[in-house]
């Protein structure tokens, strides 16, 4: 971008009209609908005073809820990254009956209301549901590495943190598939073929040639799925169990604080959620920008 010497220092000249109008509408709507309301949230949180903010922010229940929301969203996004990548691969590379149908079905979570999803998921994964009753005999001990989140899996999905994850996986899947799919479609075949001709095994080709090219898109999909999952409410509350310190998600804690007439407390938890998500999304974007630089723009 070469800065032209014009009176408009902050934008480059163009013969196209309507910049003022378009930007005006955008900024006005953005301010009225998004920015001012969010500013009110910060203002309300600040009105609690430092001592109260600290008390709410560091209360074990708040921390537990935030930890659950973020870890469940993280693992749901990870599951989605793995299965979403496989799914996108299958959809792009293989021909099989019903492929079009499957392709269309991936967008279902975008279109299905979250409350409906929550009620159906709870019905399916409850101990007396279709899947829940099958899972009941499969009790095992499941520990997630690098965290102290370990569930003795007692055959229950609904009404446990696992139920939260199931709902979040549902919500986030299309983000990964839909970001990875176009990149896979546009992947040039010559590098792959060259790798194979030079004797690289298929496995090696996939991990050394294909994956690096898909990685930035996969990362974007992961971040989107994660961001959506952290704040999800409608589908989760039906299946979570909502036990404080155990299966109570942060958005529910906001609602609960609100229902106790603790507006400032609700605003503090909400602000914390927002700040943490932004920090994580920002970090994700930075990692992605670095990946892009390393592997070339995809």
């Amino acid at each position, binding site marked *: 971008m070469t800065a032209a010497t014009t009176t408009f220092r902050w934008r480059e000249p163009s013969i196209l009209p309507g910049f003022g109008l378009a930007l005006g509408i955008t900024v006005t709507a953005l301010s009225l609908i998004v920015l001012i309301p969010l500013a009110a949230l910060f203002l309300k949180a600040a009105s609690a005073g430092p001592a109260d903010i600290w008390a709410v922010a560091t209360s074990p*229940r708040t921390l537990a809820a935030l930890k659950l929301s973020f870890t469940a969203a993280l693992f749901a996004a990870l599951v989605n990254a793995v299965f979403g990548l496989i799914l996108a691969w299958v959809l792009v590379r293989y021909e099989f009956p019903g492929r079009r149908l499957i392709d269309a079905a991936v967008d279902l979570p975008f279109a299905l209301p979250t409350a409906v999803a929550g009620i159906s998921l*709870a019905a399916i994964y*409850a*101990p*007396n*549901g279709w899947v829940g009753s099958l899972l009941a005999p499969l009790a095992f001990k499941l520990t997630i590495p690098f965290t102290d989140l370990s569930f003795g899996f007692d055959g229950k999905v*609904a*009404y446990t943190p696992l139920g939260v994850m199931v709902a979040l996986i549902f919500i986030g899947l299309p983000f990964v598939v839909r970001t990875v799919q176009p990149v896979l479609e546009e992947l040039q075949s010559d590098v792959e073929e060259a790798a194979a001709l030079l004797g690289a095994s298929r496995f090696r080709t996939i991990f050394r040639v294909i994956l690096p090219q898909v990685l930035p898109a996969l990362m974007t999909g992961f971040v989107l799925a994660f961001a959506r999952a952290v704040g999800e409410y409608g589908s989760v*509350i039906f299946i979570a*169990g*909502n*036990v*404080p*310190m*155990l299966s*109570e998600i942060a958005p*529910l804690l906001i*609602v*609960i604080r*609100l*229902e*106790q*007439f*603790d507006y400032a*407390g609700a605003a503090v938890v909400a602000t914390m959620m927002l700040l943490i998500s932004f920090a994580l999304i920002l970090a994700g974007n930075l990692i992605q920008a670095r990946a892009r630089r390393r592997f070339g723009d995809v």
Partner: protein
Amino acid sequence: MTRPAYSRLLRAGLVLGAFSLCFGVVAGARAQTELLNVSYDPTRELYRDINAAFLAEWNAKHPDKKIATIRQSHGGSGAQARTVIDGLNADVVTLALAGDIDAVAERSKKLPLDWQKRLPHNSSPYTSTIVFLVRKGNPKAIKDWGDLVKPGVQIITPNPKTSGGARWNYLAAWAYAEKAFNKDDAKIRDYIGKLLANVPVLDTGARGATTTFTQRGIGDVFLSWENEAFLALKEFGTDKFDIVVPSPSILAEPPVALVDGNVDAKKTREQAQAYLEFLYTPKAQAIIARNFYRPRNPEAADAKDIANFPKVELVTIDDVFGGWKKAQPTHFGDGGTFDQLYKPAR
């Protein structure tokens, strides 16, 4: 479609969009003359019947002041109080406990603080209590409060922070413990802590908890409003669940109140007042008993409905806890006994 036609269509669409936006804002500000009853979760069926009966009676007697409809809003008692505080213009509030209406009075200042003295029987036209709903045949042999803390018993109750019914549950358990352990504070706390540790799911409202117990098959015993337990038997069949009546239980008085600020603004005071007074009439008392609430005036109700209600030794919140104004902050406020004793088992 040719390009000019397409562009005309789009232009028309844009204008229509802008117009509907303005229209929507104006339309939203317009209000109709009708009553709004903001109530808690389990009263859905009760007020459906009450409203029909009251409308018929009122509109026949007052053709000049007809009420078009009585609107209902239901949810957790605390959540409902919050929406009224935030400006939902309820004519009357009919909540699960006096503490929630106290909060409305204090924060919205739309009704006087002594609202509870304005109608008979502490402004509660009906009462209820807390009973145990167990699975058919009572496989875990749950007879009384003491059995709830046995290891392996799973208890379903809503969250006392958000549900009025759950607060009555909690206080009923506390009242039992106070009696059983002779006011030994350490033992009471130990008992309540053990009881809470047996709760696998804490729904936000009474109705959600009922669904968890009855339809999802979770838990061995459900601490329930008496009316909610009877309703579950009616909905799902008496062959699935039994009701167990604990030795002492608590006299739950769900109160009703006029929201003066709102009825004066809407000019509906006369109708709203009549609506609340109607709840005390023999006709309404019979409907109340039919919907499994205990009427204040049993003689007015069908003897068959009254026979449903088991004899329970009932303690009152005023006797044991010194009223809601004391019980609410002590037990359910931030850092109250619930916060102290709730340590979920990992």
